[in-house]
């Protein structure tokens, strides 16, 4: 039961993440400005942390979320739990680093980036929790019941 609920929560969060990162990737390539009420989006998006060797972090985020969603949909059992938790954890740590740069180096806040960091934090919690509460293949049987 719990496993299934956490699975659904992870699916939902991955879709939300895809929407946010997809929007930021779109505005990056369209050359338009993200709708921004914090006033810091253009500062953050034009900073040196906004891309990695020319690849915008928004696109990295989108790829990450798609991989998480893909792992949840394509894999089964423990492979699914391990893959989604590993991907979410990497995303959580990296977005934590970016948020740190926003707050302490760039000193500007981009609410879309913060929203994405929050989604990744929740994803990391949900997928790790799911990994810890299930005991491998055995959980599958109880899921069905």
């Amino acid at each position, binding site marked *: 039961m719990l496993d299934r609920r956490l699975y659904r929560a992870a699916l939902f969060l991955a879709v939300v993440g895809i929407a946010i990162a997809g929007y930021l990737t779109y505005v990056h390539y369209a050359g338009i400005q993200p709708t921004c009420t914090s006033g810091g989006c253009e500062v953050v998006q034009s900073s*040196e942390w906004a891309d990695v060797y020319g690849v915008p972090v928004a696109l990295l985020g989108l790829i990450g979320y798609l991989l998480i969603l893909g792992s949840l949909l394509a894999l089964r059992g423990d492979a699914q739990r391990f893959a989604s938790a*590993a991907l979410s954890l990497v995303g959580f740590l990296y977005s934590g680093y970016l948020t740190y740069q926003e707050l302490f180096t760039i000193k500007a806040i981009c609410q879309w980036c913060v929203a994405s960091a929050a989604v990744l934090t929740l994803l990391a919690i949900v997928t790790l929790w799911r*990994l810890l509460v299930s005991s*491998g293949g055995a959980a599958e049987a109880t899921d069905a019941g």
Partner: protein
Amino acid sequence: MSPAYTPPNPNKRRNVMIAALVAVAVVVAAILIVVSSGDNKDQSAAPASNAPLRGLSETKAMLEGIPQEGNALGEQNAPITMIEYADYQCPFCRDYALETMPVLINDYVRSGKLRMEFETLTFVGPDSETAARAGAAAGQQNLEWNFSHLFYFNQGEERSGYVTDAFIDKLYEGAGVDAAKANAYRKTPAAAVPIAQASENAQKYGVASTPSFVIGPTGGPYTKLEVEISNADAFKAAFDALLK
């Protein structure tokens, strides 16, 4: 007693795997962080004070023979005008200035079809205002475009404090600006007037980022131009539509 067979404890093995997963995730994230923090240190480091100025010949070639007046470039009676809202420290403004703008100047400003105006916003940080004041002072000598183009060629890392008096003096020298006069002017309240005006106009047009552009028949009314800054053809299509 023969030793009984004890199957490996699946929970123990699983916990080891989870620990390994966390370790791998930490390593992968650390690699990502190292890669992303080191990727553009070289090109964006503040220019050394004794480094030669970049872009002298390019700036000269782009602007030679085109009239300038304050912050405006091109014929006064050009049928259309495009106003750019820029921040001296903004890297996208540099990309536009160095990659797209020379084509537009060559094809439209040089032939008298387009006039360009350069308005400076200062949202990135204090260096933006120092640079904008210095640009306005160059504009007093009708050399703001030479100054700003050289500035973008030699742009440093945002908020790294590279916009020093020495840096400005070097740009003035390269742009052919009378440095003594310009340095006196840029510290007066008058040099801040164009910044305040630009900020007011930017609000009027709904400009929230740099570079942004508004275009229209010279004298107005102007409307915001939504184009990708790297796409010279999109700019040209907008000019052609107005020139029809």
